[in-house]
Every structure is written in structure tokens, then in C-alpha cells.
């Protein structure tokens, strides 16, 4: 019953092009295009077929991504991609699961799910399309907007301290913590590929220019002048050092893997999954056996 027709092999970029060509609604030049391309390329590079992939998103410009990639996908509610993705993963633990969220979406509205997903270490990849603004609702200040950001809700400039997704991820127990830039697709592709391969919760905070609402700073040019690659200077096994690096922002902005650790995933510790690890829960028979059920009742006699 669970034989699956093998995927077309080798997997090509074309396999990830939407079948029913939805018109793409992103603004020309939007950083989301780079993220989409990097994700598609990473999946091809890892030779994962589209039907083995599930992309769950929230609501926002970036969260329209599932409409632009051909694989299983669900755009859910603003802020809720992570818990939906986790629920899915637990019953389909053979699939590659991605949660794709905006900064407002994933770290604002969905902030609680985020900190708890990290400590829970569910095996999925979390891509944060971090454009430091609420793009789809017209550029209001987001939790990652830097102080001074001017918008309709902060006409004199934002006064709140910005969330630093890297520092918080390190504190909350994420086991793979990286930052990419949508303007450099290849390194981003490689980071996403590493994140997918990481056993456990992996976050890639992706700096993403919003060409419509964020025109002063955080442009492609602004970022290109500042980003540098951590790889050579930093040992991703050291959590405290990673924290120190995470505080770097401004003239120099580090990209790459800040931290990586192997810790048991939630899959690995979930009884139901481990009873029959070779068959995802969703593909098992529905009913319990008569004996099992009678035993439960007997406990109550």
C-alpha cells in the first residue's frame, strides 16, 4: 500500500517550477526572488524530489512562496507556520519540511511558537524572510526594524530595540543557526542545503531587501557593502562566541553558520515515531488492535 512511484531522476530545477503557472505578485526586484531561487536550487542540489518536500508558510509577501514552487505546500495563518509545520513533521517524518516565515510573521505574531520550536528541536528548516518591515501590509515597523526606521506606525522613527534572530536562537536552544543574504543566491543555497541536512531545528535568518518599503537602508547595496563570511573566523561549536558574533551589526554584518550542535530531535524521542521509524505515522494502519483496546478498558475495571 505504501509503494511510492519513484521520483523523476535526476531532479532538475524545472521540477520545482509551478505547474499551474500562478502569476508571481512580488514587486520587481524583491529579495524574495533570491530566496525562492536559492531554495529551489538547494532542493535540486540535494536531489530531493518535489513530492518529498512540504513547505509551510504564514502570511506576508514572503509567505506567498508556496504558490511559486511546485511541491507540497500550505500557506496558513499569519504567525502560525511553525506549529503547523511541526505537527506535519511528526506524522510525516520522512519528508523534508520547511517553515517559511516573514520577520513580522515568524518573530512578531509567531514569536512564541518560534522560541518553543527551537527548544523542542523538531527536525525542520526555518527560513526567515527578514526584510525588517511588514511588507504586505504596507511597510509598518516590524520586530526586526532597526531603531529609527520610519513608517506609518513610527513616523518619527522606530524607538524599539530590534529582535536579533541569531542571538535569540542561540539563547533558546536552536541547534543550527545561520544567516544568509538574498542578494547572494549561491551562498544562500548552500546554507539552506546545510540547514535541510541538519538533524533538528535549523534557522536561516535571511537578510532580504524590500525594494518598496525599505529604500533608505537595507538595500542590496547597503548589505553588499557590509556582509562578510564568518566561516574562516569562527568556530560554530562555541555557543558563547556565537553569541558575541551575533551582536555584530552595522559596519560589518556576519553571514554563515553561527552555531551548530547535535542534540536528539523530537522525532527521535517521540514514542509513536520510534515504534516503527521506517514508516511515518501517517502511512500506518488506522485502527488499534482488539487486544490493545481491551487492555485499556481493563485498567478501568
Amino acid at each position, binding site marked *: 500500500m505504501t509503494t511510492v512511484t519513484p521520483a523523476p531522476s535526476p531532479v532538475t530545477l524545472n521540477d520545482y517550477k509551478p505547474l499551474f503557472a500562478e502569476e508571481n505578485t512580488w514587486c520587481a526586484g524583491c529579495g524574495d526572488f533570491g530566496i525562492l531561487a536559492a531554495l529551489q536550487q538547494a532542493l535540486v542540489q540535494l536531489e530531493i524530489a518535489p513530492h518529498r518536500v512540504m513547505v509551510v508558510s504564514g502570511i506576508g509577501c514572503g509567505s506567498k512562496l508556496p504558490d511559486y514552487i511546485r511541491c507540497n505546500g500550505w*500557506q496558513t495563518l499569519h504567525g502560525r507556520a511553525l506549529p503547523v509545520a511541526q*505537527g506535519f513533521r511528526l*506524522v510525516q517524518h520522512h519528508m523534508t519540511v520547511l517553515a517559511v516565515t516573514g520577520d513580522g510573521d515568524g518573530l512578531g505574531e509567531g514569536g*512564541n511558537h518560534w522560541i518553543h520550536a527551537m527548544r523542542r528541536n523538531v527536525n525542520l528548516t526555518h527560513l526567515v524572510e527578514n526584510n525588517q518591515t511588514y511588507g504586505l501590509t504596507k511597510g509598518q515597523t516590524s520586530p526586526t526594524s532597526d531603531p529609527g526606521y520610519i513608517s506609518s506606525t513610527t513616523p518619527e522613527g522606530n524607538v524599539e530595540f530590534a529582535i536579533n534572530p541569531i542571538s535569540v536562537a542561540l539563547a533558546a536552544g536552536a541547534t543550527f543557526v545561520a544567516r544568509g543574504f538574498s542578494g547572494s543566491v549561491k551562498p544562500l543555497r548552500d546554507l539552506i542545503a546545510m540547514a535541510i541536512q541538519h538533524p533538528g531545528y535549523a534557522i536561516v535568518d535571511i537578510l532580504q531587501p524590500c525594494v518598496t518599503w525599505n529604500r533608505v537602508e537595507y538595500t542590496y547595496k547597503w548589505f553588499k557593502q557590509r556582509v562578510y563570511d564568518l566561516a574562516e573566523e569562527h568556530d560554530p561549536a562555541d555557543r558563547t562566541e556565537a553569541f558575541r558574533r551575533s551582536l555584530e551589526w552595522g559596519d560589518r554584518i556576519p553571514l554563515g553558520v553561527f552555531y551548530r550542535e547535535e542534540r536528539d530531535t523530537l522525532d527521535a524521542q517521540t514514542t509513536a515515531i520510534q515504534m516503527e521509524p521506517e514508516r511515518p505515522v501517517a*502511512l500506518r494502519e*488506522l485502527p*488499534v488492535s482488539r487486544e490493545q483496546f481491551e487492555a485499556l*478498558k481493563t485498567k478501568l475495571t
Partner: protein
Amino acid sequence: MPEVIYTIGGAAGQGVESSGAGLAKAHVRAGYHVFAAQDYESRIRGGHNFYQLRASDEPVHAHARHHSILIALDDVSVPQHVPEMRAGGAVIYDAGRDDVDAGAIADAGARAVPAPLIEIATTVGNDKVMANTVALSIASALTNFDFDAIAQIIRENFSRKGGAAVEENLAVARAGYEWGAERVDGFSHRLPPPPAGNGAGPSMLIHGNQAVALGAIAAGCKAVSGYPMTPWSTILEELTGARDLGIVVQQTEDEIAAIAFALGASWGGVRALTGSSGGGFALMVEHLSLAGMNEVPVVIVEVQRGGPATGLATRTEQPDLHFALHAGHGEFPMIVTALKDAVDGFYRTARCFNLAEQYQCPVILLSDLFTSNSLVSVPTSALDLEAVLAEIDRGKTLTYDAIEELAEPYGRYVFSEDGISPRAVPGHPNALVHGMSDEHDEFGGITEEATNRIAMMRKRMRKLEGAHTQMEPPTVYGPAEAPVSLVGWGGTWGVLTEVVDRSEGRFNLIHYTDLQPFPAGGVEPLERANTLVAVEQNFTGQLAQHLRAQTGVEIPNRILKYDGRHMTPGWVMEQLEEIA
């Protein structure tokens, strides 16, 4: 109905619940019908709790505010419960206490039984914690309950502490029983012999939440997510105990995550359940709308308690009917049903999973605190796995075998006559499952186009027409021509049927379980009735309002209880006297 009502009152932490549970189990084992209700406060230690146990040779389905025997472990028990004593009942308390007003007990027409509880516990045994055991044994002797049944439970409960503990407890119990047996003279609250027919098979003692959990297990639920909240928590905990049956159980960070997990799991292809009580359910309502839009089956159990806000966290009420019926923004199909009692809860839960998958929509199961934690004895055969399995219907769920046969490109939301589109389990190359929570086309892609929007709204809402045909009309219990018809819903079934039984033909009961979509046949019993009286455990008479909206029938009389205490048959009878 010859019955004995035992009530044990004490502070949280004094062992009221465990004593009561032991006594209840002993009576079930001995072949009696039992109903046991708990009354406790929202605190972990102290305060005043009580446990009430009715044992009879006929089925019992409600609690009562009367006591044949009161075991008073704290100083609140006597002033609070003595006025409720049955004539000739007995009040057992430690002889060493000087706070008990024996005169008041006599005035209430009951017998004061100051007993050497601590003395026996510390001389026959050597720990005063066994005082409760002494009291239970004395009570058993008074009611003529068989000592062997008590002994059997003691053996079971203490076996893991070793033989010495068993023997010590047995000795203490025996001493108490003997002390009591010497004092039965003139005591009239004696148990009849256990009913003979009740020996057909073993019985169990089960509460509503356990029944719901068993129903979910029987129906093949494979994913459960939730956050602790009284009185829902024990469903989560019971199912946690069943993880070794292959059920993924996840405690989440909050109720929003709880329902989101369930929807994710359902999208993954399994039957999924979540739940909470009112306040936690309130956090889930945005996701009901998501489940409606993306046609994701899910079962949500809402175990109601006293509101609003934190309200009466450990007390019962039915205040969330309207909220549940209309929960979620925008318009989408949703099914709402309420359970009557534990056995009904078992089958109804299983049915919720079928409805959820048949109509690919959220299904809300309403319960209430009283039903969730009061225990009733039922034969184990009453919860029949085979009956549930025979009914399992996953609707248009496409497992991989079916997907293998797909000829056309798969679209999750293809239009169909009944509004239901085949739902593929993801992971197969022939069917990528794609859906967006914006309005979407047949393939799940976003579109704002008006014609598609109209067609999609109609498609989704059309599912209610199918569901409608499966909804149960209200049950009419009692004589069809009764001059007065009580109208109730959900967990008041036990109380109200007992009222009908006691009424000698004066009342019948029109009882609703399926509330949305409104069942065909939902109005006729109302129209046939003489005088209608809505009886609800809330302030505003929500069922009555719902019936008016659905049927136009107005119910002029209302008996409403909203003090957090469950209604008793006696109380309902009193209220009815004033009306009818």
C-alpha cells in the same frame, strides 16, 4: 430505586478523591451500579472538596445533594453537608474532634457516629493516614457492603508497597468494619443485594474524559496536541498514556499551537484531535476558520467550565454553546455536537472523526466539567471497538493506493457536486498537495477572481447540506404525551432522564446533541410538546435561543443554573414545581 449515597468531605490533600475512588471501585467490583461526582476548588491543598458516590441496584446517571453516609474529614463537612442528610443517615467523624455539633446532626434527623478513626489507625496500624480507611470500612459495615470487596481493593492498591503494607491496611480496615458492624442496629440505609444480571461481564468505572480518549483511540486518532487546562487536561493525559499505541501526543506552548499542530498533522494525513476549555478554546478560533478555508478535518473537544475569564475553574457550566456555534471569522462549514454522558461520549468522539473526514471541516465536541470528571459504572462491553471500526469512514481521503490510480493532475480543491474534493495524503508523486489560506482555485493557488470566489464559497458551504442529513434529531425520553417537556442538551442528560423517571409520567425530555448543522427533525418534538421548559446549566438559556433562531419556536420557561454546581434531579424537580 434502593440506593446508598456516600459522601466524603475534606480538604484538598486529605485523600478525599483517592478514598472515594477506592470505595467506588469496590462497589463496581461487587456488581453495583455506581455514579460518583467530585466537587473541588481551584487550589492544590486545603479548602473543602467532596466526593459523592451513589451505589444502587439500578443504573444511576446523576449526582444528588443528599447523603446516606457522610464521612467528615474536615471541619467544613458537617456544617455544609449535614443539612442535606437523608433521614436516618449517619455522619462519621473522628471521636477525638471537639468541633462537631452532634446536636445539629440529630436535628437534621441523622445519626452522629463519632468513631475511633485515628485511634484504630494508630493502634491497629501505626500511621494516622489510615484513618480514612477506617472511616470507609465503618461506612461499609453500616451499609452492609461486603468486606471482601473492600479487602480486594486494599490488596490491589498496596501490593506495590509490599505484603506488610497490605496486611497492616487490611487489619485496620477489618477493625473499622467490625467497629461499624456493632453499630448497624436501626440504621436503615442498607444496600440491596447487587443486581444479578449485572454479572454478564466486568464493569469499569469511567469518566467522560476517559470515554472521549477511548473513543479517539478506537477511531484511529494518531495525533493529539494540547495545553493543560482544567477540565480538558485529563483527555490529554489519558492519551499521553496511550503513546505506545502509536499516537503522537504533543504538549504545546499554548492553545494556538495546539490546534495548529493538529491541523499540520491532519494535513499530513492522520486523524487529529485537540481541545481545551473555554479560555483555551477562545485562542483556537482563528484556526477554525483556517480549517474551514483549507478544508482540513480536525476534532476539537471543548470541555466547558464556569466562565467568564478564569471564572470558576473547577466548576461546571454550559456557557459556551453560542460561542462554539459561531466561532471563527468569515463563513465556513463547521459541525458542533455535544455529548450526553460517558458512553455516548465514546461513540460520539469516534463519530466526530468520521464527520471531520467526510466533510473535511472542523468538528467541535462539547462536553462539560461535570460530565468530564464524574465516574459512572458501565460494563466494559458497552464500549465496543468493533462497532466503532465498522463505522469508520474516511470520506474522500486518498491514500497512496488511490493516488497511484489518479489519471488527471491532482487539485486539492476540485469542484464537486457534494462540495467535497478528494484529499490526498502528501508524499506521493502523483499528488502534490497545495493549498493557500487566501481564496484559491481548484488547485489551491491564490486567486481573487469573483466567479471562482462564488463557486468556492458555494462548494465549501454545500458540504453542510450533506452533513445536515447525518445530524441526529433530539432524543425524546419518557412518555410522548407528557404535559411538560423539558428541553436540554449535552451533559445534563443523566440528571434530566432521572427527573423524567421520577416524575411518574408528568414530564418528558427533548434532548439535543447535534447542534450544527441543525438536524432535520429538530423542530417536530418541540411542536408536538405541551408546555416547554428549557433546562440549562447557564445564565442566558443558550439552547433555547438557538432553537428560536433555528426553528422559530420560543420556549417560555427556563430553569437555569449558573453557580458552578451541577444540577441534581431533586433541584430540577423543585424548580419545576414552581413552573408547572
